[in-house]
């Protein structure tokens, strides 16, 4: 991915399977750009993105979402004046492909409302369902972001720093949710995360980006111990 003369992500070629892959690297390493390339928020200047063998490089973000890529954003990205429930209901509605229904009322689709309420329960936000999203504290907004992603029921879950800005008490709820998805064993989870303890506890595989390039890829223990990662990411010099 090239921005003018700057190459933000350069030939990072990876295949992701079911399980949690953590993408780590220092600030500016290109992690979020890499995420944007996969989810379609940015169009790649070269290279290919494939999903279950299908080339989706030229597909837009909504088309990729419909094919099963779901994403939670690093900077909370909600519908601020809509209620918490409505934020999630819109995701459920998108998943059910009911957005173009013109003549029924949204309230009559009780199944969508119930499903949205279920996902709110899972992130412990059920009691705030009628609050406008903008009025939630930051930690709750992060949880709502995760609930929206869950409601999309994707094949590929993309979490961009899901616990950033959360209080210590709130972190386990989100980690447990990711762990629950992982335990089912059939979903691919991509996780950008700075907190190494979170990465250690969840990841089946770690890839490390540094200055837009892939510098390490493997099992957590092996990658964390690798000298190149110690230097590039953890700031420990080799000699």
């Amino acid at each position: 991915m090239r921005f003018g003369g700057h190459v933000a992500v350069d030939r990072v070629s990876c295949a992701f399977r079911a399980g949690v892959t953590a993408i780590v690297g220092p600030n500016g390493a290109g992690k979020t750009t890499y995420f944007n390339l996969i989810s379609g928020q940015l169009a790649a200047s070269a290279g290919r993105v494939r999903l279950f063998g299908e080339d989706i490089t030229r597909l837009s973000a909504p088309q990729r979402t419909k094919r099963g890529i779901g994403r939670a954003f690093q900077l909370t990205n909600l519908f601020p004046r809509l209620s918490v429930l409505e934020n999630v209901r819109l995701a459920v509605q998108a998943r059910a492909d009911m957005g173009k229904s013109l003549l029924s009322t949204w309230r009559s689709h009780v199944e969508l409302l119930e499903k949205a309420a279920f996902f709110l329960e899972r992130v412990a936000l059920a009691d705030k369902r009628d609050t406008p999203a903008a009025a939630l504290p930051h930690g709750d907004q992060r949880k709502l972001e995760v609930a929206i992603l869950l409601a999309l029921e994707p094949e590929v879950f993309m979490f961009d720093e899901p616990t950033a800005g959360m209080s210590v008490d709130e972190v386990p709820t989100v980690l447990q949710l990711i762990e629950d998805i992982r335990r089912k064993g059939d979903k691919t989870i991509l996780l950008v995360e700075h907190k190494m303890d979170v990465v250690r506890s969840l990841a089946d595989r770690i890839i490390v980006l540094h200055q837009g390039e892939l510098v390490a890829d493997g099992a957590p223990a092996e990658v964390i111990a690798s000298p190149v990662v110690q230097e590039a990411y953890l700031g420990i010099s080799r000699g």
Partner: protein
Amino acid sequence: MNWLLSGDLPRSRILAFLLIGILACLVLAPFVFPGTRSLNVAAKVAVFILLVASYDLLLGYTGIVSFAHTMFFGIGGYGIGIAAARLGPTWSSLALGIFLSLLASLALAFAIGLLSLRVRAIFFAMITLAVASFFQILASQLSELTGGEDGLNIRLPALLQRSRLATYYAVVLVSFVLFLLLLRIVNSPFGRVLLSIRENEFRAEALGYRTVVYRTLANCLGALMATAAGALYALWLRYTGPDATLSFSIMIDLLLMVVIGGMGTMYGAAVGATLFVVAQNYLQDLMKLASDSASGVPLLPNLLHPDRWLLWLGVLFIVCVYYFPSGIVGRLRR
């Protein structure tokens, strides 16, 4: 009632009374307020409720700023006018005129939407402004077809030509039904997607909604409703011309009505249009009364002179925006 209002109840007792009052006045106007002028005002209120509601679908619900809305209003008027002038005052010519004008509006709205809704809001607004100006010039230049600046007088089929009352109730009934249809649309799953686009287009895309498709659809629906309103207005006036339908002052009035009533609420369109049209027509009379009664006081009669009605309308608008930034309905529902 809940079904009729698509589950979107007024949620405020005062608003409920206001809406019932507006509907009752429209239904009973020919009997309670006899006279040509009051009936004209009532018919204009009915048509503008529909027109403002259709504009609110774009501005209030989807966040699209379009200046081409009066163009679609005009297409409806000219559709009826040209069909009646060319094919004679028959029901089939009226139906053909309405059908062709709806088709023309749909094609134009689709083209404008698809070509320009991908660009930033300000550019879209400028494109619609340019297209609307072009259409206005076209309407005055093609005088053989459109009657130019003079417009077209319309002869209606015998029943409507004979009975103003029948035309009035047809206008009110169709406006009411189409208003309810708009209320249904904004309360449908589609309407909620429009709201989500207004709130955060980027996020709506990330959920899988192709926002350009939804925005284009909203643009087409708004245009169709505005065209229907234009046709109704022409039916009522038995006339269509650039000043009656295409003028930019109507566009400004539309904006004011949406803002005064409350953006993003269909009921706001009803309240805003009624208040504005009534003020537009009766503020001068009210001011004449006030000016006469203040005749002994220095300066005041001059300030309240009926010729200054636009100044006071402007003041009313500023007061409204200042005290009710979310519009009258937004305030009442709080």
